[in-house]
């Protein structure tokens, strides 16, 4: 589609979504009123720049249903981002949203080269996380055969991959590498497998990691992008050129801004990715700041698509960590540590990658008040912190007890996170 035609569709949809947001989203209406903006005066796509941003914090404050723009009887599905009560963001989908999402996810899978002949193993988590169900519906829409494995149980995943003649694997790139490693340890012979395609997302990964996966599994690997606040997987995908991800611009209007000033940056400049949903009914978002660092390229792709390409995301504007596909903020870990008696408020989060799987260790200092001569008391303390972290983050962490003062005190901002995972390169 020529860009002029696309932009016409975008503008039409934008006007409608702005009116809907103004009338149905009190939190955004307040922002517009405070900024003195009349949504009926948005007449060009450039006018979007005058509108206030939506932040993750806005959506959190709207918990649970304040970001849902439809009466509940019109909502057929609810998803929620990782995080616990208070920090989670909740999104609702109408039947039409689910229909569009399925279409977009089918488009994504097809863009990566999947067809209705494929047997697709979906190894993203099913549940509140949008990954599993999002990809599932898209694969069905594509009329492919879906095997809904969800996460975990690696040996069974490998067995199904071989026995069911799986041709497409969808999961996080780190799980793909882990699975390849386990397969190698078990002397799995891939020569008889039908596996040909890997469609990976939900966490940042590098070209080096792609090469590694392709070396260890008989697949061509593609990157897909999405986030629950915008819809879930299906926002952008790599085509066969694998030179940036095409954004489904007919439904999501992207901008890249300077994260400090909020100013829109010209094509190709690196900044924070911002999305406005153009068709979403359940939870529309206007100028949602993703925190993901990227850049946009508008020239027509060699594949022929005119849809804008975004540079693959390799970093973020905030301190959010993505560990095995789960979003983790250091502040969540801090609040757990501070809730445990006898632990000093000094901690360090150490991220490592072992067997291609991210591991998170939390180092805490034992305070003299709680130090017990008995090993079992210390072990109980360690276990107690581990259990609390697991409940908060939905992720297994290893807690390491340290001697007091062993975590370096720095003047000003302490170094809370030590990321020893192989540095992710940029596109």
């Amino acid at each position, binding site marked *: 589609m020529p860009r002029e035609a696309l932009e016409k569709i975008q503008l039409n949809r934008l006007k409608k979504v702005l009116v809907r947001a103004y009338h149905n989203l009190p939190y955004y209406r307040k922002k517009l009123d405070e900024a003195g903006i009349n949504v009926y005066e948005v007449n060009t796509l450039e006018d979007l720049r005058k509108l206030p941003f939506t932040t993750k914090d806005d959506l959190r404050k709207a918990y649970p249903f304040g970001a849902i723009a439809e009466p509940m009887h019109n909502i057929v599905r609810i998803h929620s981002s990782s995080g616990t009560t208070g920090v989670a963001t909740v999104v609702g989908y109408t039947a039409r949203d689910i229909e569009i999402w399925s279409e977009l996810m089918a488009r994504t899978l097809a863009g990566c080269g999947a067809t209705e002949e494929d047997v697709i193993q979906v190894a993203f988590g099913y549940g509140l996380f949008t990954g599993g169900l999002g990809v599932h519906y898209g694969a069905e829409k594509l009329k492919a055969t879906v095997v809904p494995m969800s996460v975990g149980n690696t040996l069974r995943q490998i067995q199904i991959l071989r026995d069911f003649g799986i041709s497409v694997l969808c999961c996080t790139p780190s799980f793909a590498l882990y699975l390849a490693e386990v397969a190698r340890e078990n002397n799995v012979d891939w020569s008889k497998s039908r596996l040909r395609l890997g469609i990976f997302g939900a966490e940042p990964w590098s070209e080096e990691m792609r090469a590694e996966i392709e070396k260890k599994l008989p697949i061509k690997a593609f990157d897909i992008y999405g986030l629950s606040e915008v819809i879930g997987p299906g926002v952008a995908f790599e085509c066969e050129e694998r030179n940036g991800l095409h954004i489904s611009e007919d439904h999501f209007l992207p901008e890249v801004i300077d994260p400090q000033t909020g100013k829109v940056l010209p094509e190709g400049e690196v900044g924070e990715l911002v999305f406005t949903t153009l068709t979403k009914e359940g939870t529309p978002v206007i100028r949602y700041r993703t925190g993901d660092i990227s850049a946009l390229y508008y020239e027509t792709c060699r594949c022929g698509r005119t849809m804008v390409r975004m540079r693959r995301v390799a970093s973020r504007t905030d301190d959010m960590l993505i560990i095995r596909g789960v979003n983790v903020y250091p502040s969540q870990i801090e609040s757990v540590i501070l809730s445990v008696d006898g632990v000093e408020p000094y901690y360090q989060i150490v991220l490592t990658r072992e067997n291609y799987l991210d591991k998170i260790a939390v180092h805490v200092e*034992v*305070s*003299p008040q709680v*130090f017990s*001569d*008995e*090993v079992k008391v*210390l*072990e109980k303390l360690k276990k107690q912190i581990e259990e609390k972290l697991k409940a908060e983050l939905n992720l297994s962490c290893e807690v390491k*007890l340290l001697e007091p003062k062993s975590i370096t005190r720095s003047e000003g901002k302490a170094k809370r996170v030590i990321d020893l995972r192989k540095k992710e390169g940029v596109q």
Partner: protein
Amino acid sequence: MKQISVFLENRPGSLYAVLAKLREWNINLRALALADTAEFGVLRFIVENPEATAEKLKQEGFTATLTEVLAAGVEDRPGGLCAVVEVLTNEGISIEYLYAFVSPYGGKAYVVFRVEDLEKAREILEKHGIPTIETIPV
């Protein structure tokens, strides 16, 4: 008897750091045991002046604590230690931890141990003719 316990991280040099301080202060260890787990260790030892030593260790940034333990002299022969454990076992006393050593002085072996109810254990031992001691003889 008071025992000093020091928390040790599981890394090279953590035991040395404590021992080097004791050497510097010219403090002689009377008895010592090192408990370890996969993650950390607890160094337990007996010195002549536990309160002052523990205080100095804390000032140096170590996590040190004083724990009341029982110590008794036993015969340095087969079954010597067993006799002590036997009377405690018969009275249903559970031992949290224990370490023993042979002293070059007096031809005795000494056992240091920790139980939940120290007084009860002390009474039981004394009833059976095993006196607890407050210092390890030099």
